[in-house]
């Protein structure tokens, strides 16, 4: 259920993002989804890739500061209010969203959104018991 997300510390200077994606590209690692949180000095780049362990290894070799975080990918109805119903459900179960970002591609009629929760397991059980589809890790990395 859980997906390994790679987080990378990058300084806010030109060309840095390209170096990260360049390292991954050269090693044949494909980026599935990404989000960038930044301040004026530095940013945190979060990636879902097709081979997270390999990505972790090559990025560390290139002396990037990297960590792995567990996130989950959820199928959200691609219709008005689709996301709201899911967020309300999580709120009822006292699960907080730390951050979230969307996948570029759809699966069937659904959009895919990556979530980081403060309580991942509680989120999984709440969502599953209410029929929300959580995408298996291998599905996500192979989209």
């Amino acid at each position, binding site marked *: 259920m859980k997906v390994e997300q790679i*987080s990378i510390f990058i*300084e806010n200077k030109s060309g840095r993002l390209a170096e990260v994606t360049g390292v991954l590209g050269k090693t044949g690692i494909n980026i599935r989804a990404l989000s960038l949180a930044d*301040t004026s000095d530095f940013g945190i780049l979060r990636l879902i890739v097709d081979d997270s362990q390999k990505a972790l290894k090559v990025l560390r070799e290139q002396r990037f500061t990297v960590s792995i975080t567990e996130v989950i990918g959820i199928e959200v109805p691609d219709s008005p209010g689709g996301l709201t119903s899911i967020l309300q459900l999580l709120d009822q179960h006292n699960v907080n969203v730390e951050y979230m970002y969307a996948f570029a591609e759809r699966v069937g009629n659904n959009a895919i959104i990556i979530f980081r929760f403060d309580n991942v397991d509680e989120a999984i059980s709440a969502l599953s018991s209410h029929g929300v589809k959580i995408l298996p890790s291998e599905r996500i990395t192979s989209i």
Partner: protein
Amino acid sequence: MNLPVNIWNRAAETLPREEIRQLQLKRLQETLSLVANKVPCYQAKFKDSGFKPGDLHSLEDLHHLPFTTKEDLRVNYPYGMFAVPMREVVRIHSSSGTTGKPTVVGYTKDDIRTWTELVARFMTAAGVTQEDIVHIAFGYGLFTGAFGLHYGSEAIGASVIPINGGNTDKQLMIMQDYRSSALVCTPSYGLTLADRMEKQGIAPGSLALRVGLFGAEPWSEQMRVELEQRLGIIATDNYGLSEIMGPGVAGECLLKQGMHLAEDHFLAEVIDPDTGAVLPEGSVGELVLTSLTKQAFPMIRYRTRDITRLNYDVCDCGRTLARMEKTRGRTDDMLIIKGVNVFPTQIEEVLFQIEGCEPHYQLIVDRENNMDSLEVQVEVNEHIFFDEMKQQRQFVINAEKRLATVLGVSAKVKLVEPQTIKRHEGKAIRVIDRRNQ
């Protein structure tokens, strides 16, 4: 405390205070005569001050002579300060020379013997015996560190692994396979080793390491705690500078209550760095050293620029030699920011108190609109990297708050990527002052 007290040269290291002073006076007279005969720079100093070597009747009379500074060495580059012809010199060493020309120093056969003896003394005090396998991870070359410790270890009869600096993975492999028991390196490299061990899942208990002898850069008590815990060793400090001899000028015993200074070979004074006045016993100030037995490169009242304090109480280990506190910083490292004295070591201590932060940092001092600004760049590592922006920013805010409290001036903390801060010969460059550029 139930620690074994091994003393390499019991007679010299436990000499009563009055006898130390007598020996120092005799050797000082000999050294002054030597330089007055052989070294033009000192001949000029005697002439200018009107003081002759024969005028020295007490150790305090030395105050009549001017100081020797790095500038004197620069002017007399390369061999102008040597007191013997080159045929008697058997070794040349040199300082790193990060600014301008390096400093060149020389040793006669007797000088090398003395140096070896003094290193054997502090290594013994730090717990090294002939049973040890000494892993020397200093750079072998012009820098005095590696050769000094190398000869001292051999004198003790320990087995030396002259591994040299760098190549951390190979260092760890050799440490595991060859069963290194005593580690010799800079304290910052000690932490680099600890980091790599953690990453590779090598438990400190799985190594044979017992003691660590760290020198060549100032380090804090917090850093000692971290080195001891993460490497599973007893960590001691030692002090030296190539202009005086190299490592062996002073070193801690296992009681870790200050570094015993080899007073039978060096005369120490503590001065006010601004006025040059000699300060009373127990004061904090700049250490000034005079060599008492050196032949090739004698130094009279050399300003070390290191800030410390001397304690003349007899140590519980039995040694009578004065103990020098860990250096608090260098007079040339001391920064005056918005009128406040700031030492890089203070910043190091603050960074240590924030859990998990290893000390790869650099201070950038600048002036904007006639106001000084201090930026502390900290290399991010996996201990202080958080996936959540909220936590990452909180870390920066906490560090800035602590720094403001400890330093008395505000500082901006900037997180930078690993390996951004330049290292020179294994030493990190701590301060960049752009105010006078």
